[in-house]
């Protein structure tokens, strides 16, 4: 895959010395890194390294005991989910979190919720400005459906779809928010090679076409090394390495964390 040409801009989000513990378990210790505008930033690490916790801190689902988060120049002790969403942070989940009984179209429409301004009464009447507004949102949603090539499942209840497509619908819903920062939690888990290739292409296209900044957690090293601009490696809640894919690949600590060091009992 050739490196895509985008102007990677200034720092969009920065986490400083984040520490997060649950009772006696220290999930994150003293983590700092930044995400720059328009880049694809991967967070990797073995199981239990604290990757999902890190995403949860970024979108405000967890509140760290220590540290600060700077998003678009604004420093906060902690994010809050609805603030994060309003500020332009969207995410997908490791285990798909869609409304299974609703159609693909309706699921994606929920992603527009924050951008709808007419109150529920107007919307129920579906009249005048509310109608115009809904049509405009529907058009945006249709563009995303077209972008992710899911026209054929527009009307299908999400629960009936295969897993790979559900992941795509979830991405669609996140895109419907028109986010500046998109957090993807294992977007390719459980997919076959072809589905992974498709997903890679969509992630790159989103990044290129909409200029969306993307932070993703992924286990498939081939994918991570191919599509990301910079990679941060976590292990047991600590930051092991941070840099370009090539730098990270050659880092001895990272190799040890993944392959195990001789005195460990862990499997290779």
């Amino acid at each position: 895959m050739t490196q895509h040409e985008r102007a990677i801009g200034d720092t969009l989000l920065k986490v400083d010395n984040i520490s997060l513990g649950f009772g006696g378990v220290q999930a994150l210790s003293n983590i700092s890194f930044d995400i720059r505008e328009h880049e694809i930033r991967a967070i990797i690490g073995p199981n239990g390294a604290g990757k999902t916790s890190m995403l949860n801190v970024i979108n405000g689902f967890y509140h760290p005991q220590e540290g600060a988060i700077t998003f678009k120049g604004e420093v906060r002790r902690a994010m809050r989910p609805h603030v994060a969403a309003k500020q332009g942070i969207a995410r997908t989940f490791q285990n798909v979190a869609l409304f299974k009984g609703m159609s693909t179209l309706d699921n994606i429409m929920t992603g527009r919720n924050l951008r709808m301004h007419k109150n529920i009464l107007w919307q129920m009447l579906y009249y005048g400005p509310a109608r115009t507004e809904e049509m405009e949102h529907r058009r945006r949603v249709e563009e995303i459906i077209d972008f992710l090539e899911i026209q054929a499942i527009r009307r299908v209840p999400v629960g009936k779809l295969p897993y790979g497509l559900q992941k795509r619908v979830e991405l669609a819903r996140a895109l419907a928010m028109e986010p500046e920062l998109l957090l993807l939690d294992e977007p390719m888990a459980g997919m076959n090679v072809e589905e992974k290739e498709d997903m890679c292409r969509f992630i790159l296209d989103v990044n290129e076409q909409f200029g969306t900044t993307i932070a993703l957690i992924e286990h498939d090293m081939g994918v991570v090394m191919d599509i990301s601009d910079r990679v941060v490696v976590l292990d047991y809640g600590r930051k092991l390495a941070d840099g370009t894919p090539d730098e990270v690949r050659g880092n001895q600590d990272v190799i040890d964390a993944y392959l195990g060091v001789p005195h460990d009992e862990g499997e290779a």
Partner: protein
Amino acid sequence: MSGADSFPKLLLENAARIGDRPACREKDLGIWQTWNWAQVADEVRALACGLTAIGFQPGDKLIIVGDNRPRLYWAMTAAQAVGGVPVPVYQDSAAKEMAFVVDHAEARFALAEDQEQVDKLLEIRETVPRLEQIIYSDPRGLRNYGQDFLHSYDAIQETGREYDGANPDFYEQSVAGGKGDDTSVMLYTSGTTGNPKGVVLTHDNVMRTARNNQEMEKLTEDDEILAYLPMAWVGDHIFSFGQNFTAGFCVNCPESAATVMQDLRDIGPTYFFAPPRIFENILTTVMVRMEDAAPIKRRLFHYFMELAQRAGTRILDGKPVSATDRLLYALGNILVYGPLKNTLGFSRIRLAYTAGEAIGPDIFDFFRALGINLKQLYGMTEASVFITLQPDGQVDPETVGTPAPEVEVRIADNGEVLFRGPGVFREYYKSPEATAETKDAEGWVHTGDAGLFNEAGHLKIIDRAKDVGKLVDGTLVAPKYIENKLKFFPNIKEAVAFGNGRDHVAAFVNIDLVAMGNWAERHNIAYASYQELAAHPQVLEIVRQHVEQVNRDLSQDPNLGGSQIKRFLVLHKELDADDGELTRTRKVRRNFIADRYAELIEALYSGQDECHVETEVTFEDGRKGVVAADLKIVGAETFPVAAELKKAS
């Protein structure tokens, strides 16, 4: 009737005559967008002028590759309007196959639908430097490509409008300079052997064939068609391009290849083509869904479908039907047929064609019984589609109908079907030998198919001419005809018939593991492997009944009645492309099988009841192994041939 002799002229005429009528539609962002004839004429004009502005010369070829899109159809007329030749290419062909066509057609220009096709063309351009300019329709993903020979469709049209403004007479003069005798399109046929051949068709070929069929079937500007089969295929070129212009009806392009069935329902076309495979899939889906329906619905469905089988086809053909059946059929239309057709998008179909391979009589009858006027035709690229087709009311699943208007058909001494008519292609591009082999001095084209005319004057295609043989007593044997009859039974997956130079016909049969396995499950028959199931006595008995049914059918045909199957065996393994027994498109490789299983064939023709066989097989992971089996050879009853009895009496 219009006086235009080329498609660009006809476009101008249509724009003037029915300018506000819809010419094409495309579903985009979930909404059907419509262009009327005046708009299409405008789009084509801008594109044609744009092509000229970037150096497209008369005689240049324009490669067109992508799904069915209005813009791609417009490009065909645009190329024609400035004296060029559109060359549509199969959108799923690999870069290597496409490179052959681009190189052979000597194309300097190409139009690609999207990034996927652009990538292929860029790869091709490295080895075929003659390809100069590439135009793309959908800019997605192409933002950073930046090559100066890559142009967006919109940019070309923009350039074209400027060019048109500066040279206002150019377009009309260019269009007026076209003649009916000019090449209108080159269609590469995906030959089974060797490289594809570029079939050169003229405006006259396409237009006269399209018009003749349109008059015969009374197609009008009120008809609707869904364009979903590859643009590089001659059928689509006639139905969705040629007749679009001649009849002036509206062509609808689906949103994507995956949404065709939904789009079909949105549009409800009045004119529809599908290969037998698609009709078969639709029927299977309906049947599976009915099995899951509530018992009362299921019973209703089966009751009315039985009635439809009895009365529906007769009503469609205008034959006498009892008043009770008519009444019940009308009721069935309200309760079952109407809703079913609506679900399938078939409510408004006035004319449906199928062609390409043999269609199972059950499938054919199912759709006709619903009141859908499904007919078979026989055609090929070299004929601009139509060689024969079934006139209304004279439809039979066994035949492909009578010669199309202005087409002459005759059977050569060796049984091969020959034809000539207004649609006969001019030549294979740059292949005079191949042209001479296929088309003789008097214009007769060799189809390579063996056929017969029945008493009613309908053509029946039986096999490839080279595969047809004779028994020692001179009886005609068409192996594929027999094999197809066997394969129409869901329990039989493949069959190979032998008989050339022998004293009777014998066959290998492959059972269908899904259908037979299902049957075994329902009858509590345990089996551990394909081989074991295939050798089960009850399975052999079922196959024997099927074979005898085929024999009974064959006996009705005076020409082929003598080729009934006397002995058969059920093979111990599935014929497999990995073992070289089938082609990748699942066609039987007859000679290879005859060599590989020579001892089995000998056993069929000696008196043996059993034969031991050991076969090397290739497993999915590439390892090889040996399968050994003792196969039973089964005799089947044969029946007296019908027409011969009549002659005797």
